[in-house]
């Protein structure tokens, strides 16, 4: 079996590594699944469960996170930009993708003002058609930076605890 992709998701504020999500998204895209289709959550959960354990109690949270990620994927795929894995560099000797430091945006609290998009020097954020902001490329986020959070008046942006970074700073590479 070919090696499956591995991707980190923030599920209810907790990082969860999932296998095979990129392959699932690609298949759904080729099958014509639209990001807002009512059957999409079911397809995503069923697909993810083939390679990963999804607790029943967290079904809704997984579904929300996967829907948002598929929305990003869908737009990127439509734009024609390459989907090949990019090199995000390293932080303290660890591959950037292994460090779960990135913002999460609360859809309920986001007022679409775009201050985070304006302040971020790395194009981490983009706007949905609805005007709400979402994280389009989490691993572009500068490890340790939280300026988007400080600029967000409705307090819609969450960042991980800074202490978490010590795990990576002092861990063996």
């Amino acid at each position, binding site marked *: 079996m070919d090696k499956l992709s591995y991707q980190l998701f923030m599920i209810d504020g907790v990082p969860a590594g999932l296998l095979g999500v990129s392959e699932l998204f690609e298949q759904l895209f080729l099958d014509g699944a639209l990001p807002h289709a009512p059957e999409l959550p079911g397809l995503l959960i069923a697909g993810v469960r083939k390679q990963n354990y999804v607790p029943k109690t967290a079904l809704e949270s997984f579904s929300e996170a996967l829907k948002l990620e598929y929305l990003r994927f869908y737009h990127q795929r439509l734009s024609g930009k390459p989907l090949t894995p990019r090199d995000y560099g390293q932080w303290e000797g660890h591959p950037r993708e292994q460090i779960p430091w990135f913002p999460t945006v609360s859809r309920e609290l986001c007022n679409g003002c775009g*201050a985070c998009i*304006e302040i971020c020097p790395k194009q981490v954020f983009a706007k949905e058609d609805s005007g709400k902001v979402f994280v389009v490329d989490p691993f572009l986020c500068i490890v340790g*930076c939280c300026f988007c*959070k*400080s600029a967000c008046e409705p*307090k819609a942006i969450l960042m991980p605890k*800074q202490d978490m970074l010590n795990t990576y700073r002092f861990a063996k590479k």
Partner: protein
Amino acid sequence: MNDYGNQTLPLSLIETQIVQEFEQLSSLDEKYSRLFELGEALPPMEASLKGDENLVKGCQSSLWFHLDCTDGRCSLQADSDSMLIKGISAMLVRLVDGRPIEEIRQINLDFLDKLGLWKMASRANPGLEAIVEHLHHNLQDT
């Protein structure tokens, strides 16, 4: 202290020094690393000073400032749970240290906009504005 003989360097000169230090760094990642290093180099703040009275309100990270003005000259102690805010605080400490009260009233964070760290004007950032407001507010108690 930023003493230059018996004189404190003008605010604008220290701001220019900081800007020039950052101009020498070519990439954004280097600039942020430098900012974090500045924060890490801050002297530890006494735990007894990390009370509510020194907590900067309006900053979404935890940030404590303790301004001490004795014999007309001020010094600032700072600590934060955010590497980034700590780095900015370190720059403020550099600006404040050894300076008379009347000059501290003129301190703002406009020079940060020249560091090439972010695109948005610092004055439009409520968190950064809260930092400056807290500093100026503390002067009223001195």
